[in-house]
């Protein structure tokens, strides 16, 4: 009998690396939850992703609305027809982001990703729309401006299965 909430894969970045890609994600769950914990080799960056089916979709099929607080001010903004979708925040201090890939394995609707993240500079939340209607089986995680992850960043992907 399958567990309802279980770890699919965990990867610890062994040395400075620009990205990590989860592949062959099974379609047997309802939602995915990705937790990224660690830091960059330099300052505050948006943590982002590209998804796809069999391969990464690098086309302008992503859009995002975000809400953030810096400790002194708050703001909201959005990105449209972008080539990636933001899912958190990382800095050169310890940072945590949690992203929910909702109904990721369905093959009839576009996909929505909800996330919250924080580092030493911001608390932030995002909603991302990916225009694809195929099941997501590949997720690439990286920083928005190509700043590399420091060694020790841990990326854990969980699957949640509804009855």
């Amino acid at each position, binding site marked *: *009998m*399958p*567990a*309802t*909430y*279980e770890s699919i894969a965990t990867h610890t970045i062994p040395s400075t690396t620009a990205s990590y890609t989860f592949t062959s994600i099974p379609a047997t769950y*309802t*939602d995915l939850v990705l937790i990224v914990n660690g830091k960059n080799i330099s300052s505050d960056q948006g943590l982002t992703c590209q998804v796809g089916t069999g391969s990464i979709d690098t086309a302008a099929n992503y*859009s*995002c*609305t*975000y*809400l*953030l*607080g810096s400790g002194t001010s*708050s*703001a*909201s*903004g*959005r990105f*449209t*027809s972008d080539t990636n979708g933001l899912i958190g925040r990382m800095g050169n201090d310890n940072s945590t982001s949690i992203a*929910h890939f*909702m*109904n990721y394995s*369905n093959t*009839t*609707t*576009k*996909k*929505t*990703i*909800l996330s*919250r993240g924080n580092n030493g500079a911001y608390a932030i*939340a*995002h*909603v*991302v*729309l990916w*225009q694809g209607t195929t099941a997501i089986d590949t997720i690439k995680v990286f920083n928005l401006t190509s700043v590399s992850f420091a060694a020790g960043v841990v990326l854990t992907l969980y699957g*949640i*299965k*509804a*009855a």
Partner: protein
Amino acid sequence: MSPILGARGGLSASAYGFTSVVAAAVGDYQSIATLSGTGSSGTIAFTSIPNTYKHLQIRASYQCSTTDNPYIRVGGSSIDSGSNYSWHHLYGDGSSALSNGNGSQSFTYFGYSQNTTNPNASVIDILDYASVNKNKTLRTLTGQDNNGGGELAIWSGSWQNSSTAIGSISLITGGNFSTASRFALYGIKG
């Protein structure tokens, strides 16, 4: 039929047009039941929720046929539609970060629908739902992006009933939930 989808007002869950699957209980995060939209109803009703968990979580991906803010009501054996709710939210509409709130309401919100095609998503936590000595708190992370529109929101809601364990939950939109809409209820052991 799942035990939480038993008779409600003399009607079975299937009479409401919902499809359901019996829960598979493994680990401390357990699937209780999943309901799907029908395209012809604006209400999703979980009933007879067991009080054997510490917290509940609803994970929802849905499309509303109208542009409105879908809302949630709870209750013991029946839904409370009285003015016993309050809510606050912090949200971003793509240009500004905003906040407001209200008391003595007949519901609290769990989502935001600005587009009838793209999926909304909500993760709703209902904390200490089985307590019979304190009011209940609901918190939600929700959003919908429409490639040029949309909103991201963090909702906090309260049900002002300290003596009743939550046994019923209704999620409601002013129009209908599409057939692609899915609402999954989970129980978390404490």
